[in-house]
């Protein structure tokens, strides 16, 4: 007998009701049940970070969380970043700084960076480098990724400051 559960997931603002086998990872749930294939699997043991998504705003490895655990929670994936056709500031910065080559690891880096940026960090390249170290990229040597995240951190702080003024 398969151990199945009826779960409700809120993904990028949309509610989904799904019947999930308990062992199905959140990554497979997103990719196979919801067709959100932007979340990639690169190692399935929590090291590469290609499957990083936000669970209630916190970055998690979707290969180390079961879909059933996300029942009643909010999930945000790379598909939820752009507004319609318009890429968000972070996506644009990745493009500008050549922060991707093959693009396979990119969704994970974007979500990792979104989580980090949501904490309102200083635009400190050393700290950014440390945060970015959570995920693996084989193509770029990381330079463009670090530059993109650092720049957006500065921009968002600037904007926040302006808004506050």
């Amino acid at each position: 007998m398969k151990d199945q559960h009826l779960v409700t997931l809120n993904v990028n603002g949309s509610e989904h009701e799904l019947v999930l086998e308990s062992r199905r990872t959140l990554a497979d749930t997103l990719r196979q049940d919801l067709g959100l294939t932007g979340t990639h699997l690169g190692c399935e043991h929590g090291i590469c970070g290609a499957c990083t998504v936000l669970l209630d705003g916190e970055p998690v490895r979707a290969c180390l969380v079961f879909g059933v655990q996300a029942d009643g929670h909010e999930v945000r994936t790379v598909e939820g970043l752009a507004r319609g056709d318009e890429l968000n500031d972070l996506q644009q910065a990745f493009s500008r700084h050549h922060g991707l080559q093959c693009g396979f690891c990119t969704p994970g880096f974007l979500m990792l960076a979104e989580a980090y940026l949501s904490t309102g960090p200083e635009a400190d390249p050393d700290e950014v480098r440390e945060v970015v170290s959570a995920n693996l990229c084989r193509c770029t040597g990381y330079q463009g990724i670090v530059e993109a995240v650092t720049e957006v951190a500065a921009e968002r702080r600037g904007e926040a400051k302006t808004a506050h003024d």
Partner: protein
Amino acid sequence: MKPAPFEYHRAYTPQEVVELLRELGEDAKILAGGQSLVPMMNFRLAHPAALIDINPVSGLDYIRREGDELRVGALTRHRSVEISRGAEVRDGFAVLPRAARWIGHYPIRSRGTVGGSIAHSDPTAEWCLLARLHDAEIVVLGEHGTRTVPSEEWFTGFLTTAALPGEMVIETRFRRPRRCAALLEYARRRGDFAIAAAGVAFDVVDDRCQDVTIVLGGVAGRPLRVPEAEAHVQGAEPAESTWAEAARIAAASVEPGAEADGDHDYRRHLVGTLTRRAFREAYETGTDAGPVRGVA
């Protein structure tokens, strides 16, 4: 790399967890942050028949000071400790947030839990080392209520603890607050499990080291205290020569074993380095004494 089938159960209170553990028997495992268990399941190195998800359990996510004890709830995420800046932590347990930064990476720290790490008992895990460094007590809940296990008895070997069947970790009580403390690790790559680690804690009273503990990670199946080295530092001057001798004793205590990351000589060398540096950092961060005496 997909996990084998299991039954999924969700618990909302610690009592429910214990009831489920009793009901499901020894093939059931507790799922907290899952950062160690789930990879093992994906590799099919672990085949639990059932998982009890304790993430919905409320009331186990806290960092609280009770006198000389810092009590950390089992479901407290690593990240919560890392970013804690309150007096309850700062005063005598400042090493905890500093050491939490060594744990994996940001997404691991925002998901993994202190209790999960203590229960998993990896000999290089930061919480296990810190527990021994601070003579922590582990509070477990079982069928017959709670009991408290000294960390010295808790870690029984590689990935094994003194937990009895049906028990869950609910709290870790760090004790012996001290001004000077540090945990240092070395891994070849950022965020990896350490090849070796050294933690030290002490106070300086009248220019003498007091209340000294030294713990080593990655050199045995469980966190290892080094009483001979502790004894050497106890009552000694906080000076470079003291640290060096303690480091020498600590290094000598490393037994040869099977080492994938490096040979035995290397590990001893590393333990010596980390111990010496941990003392130095502990002293520098814990006192405003300026540079340590004896540096050439």
